[in-house]
């Protein structure tokens, strides 16, 4: 994870996360993700290898159809970008949406 600051005082933060819950980023996790993202003022963009979508739109997030093991890039732009990225990373990788992870 790196954080950088550009000259126009617009903070951009990026991180890469891996989906860890067994059922992937289905409807309910997508909803949780959007709920967390919406608490911040910054813009949140999420991308997989093909598409970039608005991290505050449940429709667009669920259409990523990210399954367990998928890697997603989260990019936040705005004053509270760092907090947003941290909170989202925690949701995806540590809390894994309060859902079970696959049995190994």
């Amino acid at each position, binding site marked *: 994870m790196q954080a950088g600051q550009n000259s126009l005082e617009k903070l951009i933060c990026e991180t890469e996360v891996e989906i860890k819950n067994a*059922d*992937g980023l*289905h*409807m*309910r996790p*997508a*909803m949780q993700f*959007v709920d967390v993202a919406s608490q911040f003022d910054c813009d949140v963009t999420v991308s997989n290898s093909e598409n970039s979508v*608005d991290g505050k*739109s*449940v*429709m*667009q997030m*669920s*259409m990523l*159809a990210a*399954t367990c093991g998928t890697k997603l890039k989260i990019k936040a732009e705005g004053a509270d970008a760092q907090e947003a990225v941290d909170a989202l990373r925690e949701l995806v990788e540590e809390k894994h949406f309060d859902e079970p992870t696959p049995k190994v």
Partner: protein
Amino acid sequence: MEIKKGIAVSPGISIARSLVIDAEDYRIPRRKIMPSQRMTEIQRTRNAFKDAIRELTQLEAAQDETEGGKIKDIFAVHLRFLHDRSLRKKVTDLVHSDLVTAEYAVSATLREIASHFTKEKDAYMRERAADIYDMERRLLKHLLGGKREDVEHLTEEVAVVVRELSPTQTAGFNKKFVKGIASDAGGRTSHAAIVARSLGIPAVVALEDLTESVSEGDTVIIDGNRGIVIVNPDDETIRQYEEYSQEFVELEHKLDAIREKPAVTRDGVKVTLLGNIEFPDEAEMVLQKGGEGIGLYRTEFLYLNRPSEPTEEDHYQAYAETVDVFKHRPVIIRTADLGADKYTQSKRFAPEPNPFLGLRSIRFCLQNLMMFKTQLHAILRASVLGEVKIMFPLITNIQELMQAKMIVRDVMEDLDEESITYNKNIKVGIMVETPSAALMASTLARDVDFFSIGTNDLTQYTLAVDRGNELVSTLYSAADPAVLRLIRTVIQDAHKAQIEVHVCGEMASEPEYIMLLLGIGLRTISLTPPMIPEIKQIVRSVTIEDCNNLARKVLGMNSERQISNYLRDATRKILPEAF
């Protein structure tokens, strides 16, 4: 003006405004709008979202936290979707750019989103499409409001344009106002065809994408003689068709003139013509057309189009009404032939993967004994009103027949205990409509009073062809030598056992098969009422000797094409108007 070609399945001409119905029974409203209507449609979209959100909020609040709040979560997710601005924008943008209605835009947008999920390899993700369809239905419900009711409460004459007509939809029609049927899917023996013929209205099927070309309220001409549907015809075409329609009605009247004459061949052999009906009010038409009884009374309508199972009294009223028309002429009531349709499938947790080889007809009844007994109770109670007979559908082996007959005896004992009178010697027969029943006919004949050959299913099961599937429907033909040999076996075995036998499938309504059927020994035919005069005309024009010769020749032929060409030529000589 647009001309569409399909398959003509029920004769006649209708010129009427269209009523377009989609698979979910919703009317698909006009798709295109004028630029000036944009704002209205966008406002309608917003209102629908607002109404759907209000409804979902109430639903969510009413849920408790059982099952870990899973149901509550589902509503919450749907709510979040409907609140999503980018979704709403997608819909309103479509209205704006493509000039389509709110309904169309909602449906197109959500289906596109759903298609993202159905393409996924992960099964869990694929199932998410169901959530999207659910949201689509909810929004459409709010957009269309009470319009769904209109199918049942028609007040003007319409031509029904539909993707594929289901029995449930048919049961819901106000038949007085339906003047014609046109469907995207289907074949000669599809449900749309059977219904149209029994109602005596024109129908054309297999029009592929007709529902895409017709908007609600467009004028359509349905030409059930040539298999053509004309969308938005010009004045000249309408004039020509009105003239043509007049001539056609005159021919029908000419045939009606033979109503009072007996169905006797030129060499004096009596043939009994019975009618197939689905609704009690069709019984009158059978009489009008010169039918001598009911050879097939389909009772499924009693189960479809109502929220709960019919009561014994519901059954009884329907049967009594029909029997009353015929007094002491035969009325053969077929026990519920449900299955492979919405009725049985909706009762299941998961639909059967192969319903036509699944739990249908007598099999369904034998597993739902309360329902079966209720119907038998009503049939037996009605048996004192006239000459009622019981017929079991889709018997495939002797055990099923024995079981069904045992249940009839059980119900008779119940009636004895209740001191209700019934005909103790009621005749019991079976439909022979599977290859297994046809091959075992000599055995089955010992335990029944009559056979009725159901040629639609017999053809489908013998040739392994789904008659509603356009890709293979050309393979479906009762003129196939394999089918004809089975039919001959059944008729011969019935004669040997000295029991009655008739044919009640669509084959019996088609002029080209009549000489053949008489030639292989059939003397009772049950058919769709509007065709009775035409078939009688054929009976009165032939001799049994001619028929025997024709049958001998046809049964020596090996190809379906050779047989159907030969039969058509032979019939054309007798009744040229039929073609």
